[in-house]
């Protein structure tokens, strides 16, 4: 499946708005300026995801998943390398967890941070596309990238093809770099593109 230039342009603009809202939320939480890179939009078979994402993050990662349902459903993921996750928890708690293992308290902080950031992102989708998205309780995964990707299942429908939108962000004055990834199944992708096209027409 290939996106047309118009679809890709409208989708990138929508995602840019959504990710900017997410960056603002992260900045509010940490008190640090957040530098957001240009979002990338692409359709990949789910089996290729590991290769795509491994270019940016490797080894053990901390990821917060939030499954969302409604007219458009999928899995939204905040991914951080393990060290970045530790630093982010430190910034939020000032407890100085350092580079050790994330304890239960740190994991909980990370999960709520993911909840806030992913809601900020997906909420923009809901508002602009005029669809209501329901959120599940966030889940934290601490594992290798491929193990995390194996868990990308929405209900009974395994995601074989997916729209992957991702961006990297950096907290200024810290070495936290993270990735926001939204994975949609093909049925939801179809509905999303339809809604995005309507939204883009209204804008122009």
């Amino acid at each position, binding site marked *: 499946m290939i996106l047309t230039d118009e679809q890709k342009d409208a989708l990138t603009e929508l995602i840019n708005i959504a990710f900017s*809202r997410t960056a603002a*939320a992260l900045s*509010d*939480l940490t008190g640090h300026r957040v530098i957001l890179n240009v979002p990338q939009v692409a359709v990949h078979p789910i089996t290729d995801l590991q290769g795509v994402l491994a270019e940016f993050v490797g080894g053990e990662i901390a990821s917060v998943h939030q499954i969302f349902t409604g007219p458009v459903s999928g899995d939204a993921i905040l991914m951080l390398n393990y060290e970045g996750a530790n630093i982010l928890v430190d910034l*939020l*708690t000032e407890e100085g967890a350092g580079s050790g293992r994330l304890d239960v*308290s740190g994991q*909980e*902080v990370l*999960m*709520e*941070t993911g*909840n*806030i950031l*992913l*809601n*900020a992102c997906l*909420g*923009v989708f*809901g*508002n602009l596309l005029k*669809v*209501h*998205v329901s*959120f*599940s*309780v*966030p889940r934290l995964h601490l594992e290798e990238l491929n193990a995390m990707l194996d868990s990308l299942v929405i209900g009974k429908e395994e995601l074989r093809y997916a729209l992957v939108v991702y961006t990297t962000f950096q907290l200024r004055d810290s070495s936290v770099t993270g990735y926001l990834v939204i994975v949609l199944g093909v049925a939801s992708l179809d509905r999303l593109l339809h809604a995005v096209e309507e939204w883009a027409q209204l804008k122009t």
Partner: protein
Amino acid sequence: MARILIIDDSALSRRMMRAILEPAGHEVLEATDGITGLERYFLDKPELVMLDLTMTGMHGLEVLEKLREMDPAARVIVATADIQSSTRTMVAAAGATGMINKPLAAETVLQAVTEALRG
């Protein structure tokens, strides 16, 4: 100054909310899920509830519905990361006194609390 019950499954969010409310002179109670929140509401009779939506176990909207059944005059501010307009509409229709978004900003929280307690 009021007795305020926070119902939120996130320790971070409860801690942040407490850090805003206590310096303003409010007494803070906590519950980590909807069922416990309903029990504490019944036992402690707080003047205001700060309620999360996406929680393990009972969803916040269901908690709100039960609270309103127990006490039609219950004052509830929903504090959620969900920024959707449709969610705001649903929360208002369910009888919440107000809604604020996370991440929590002290000024916004205190203003919502003042308005809720005044109403």
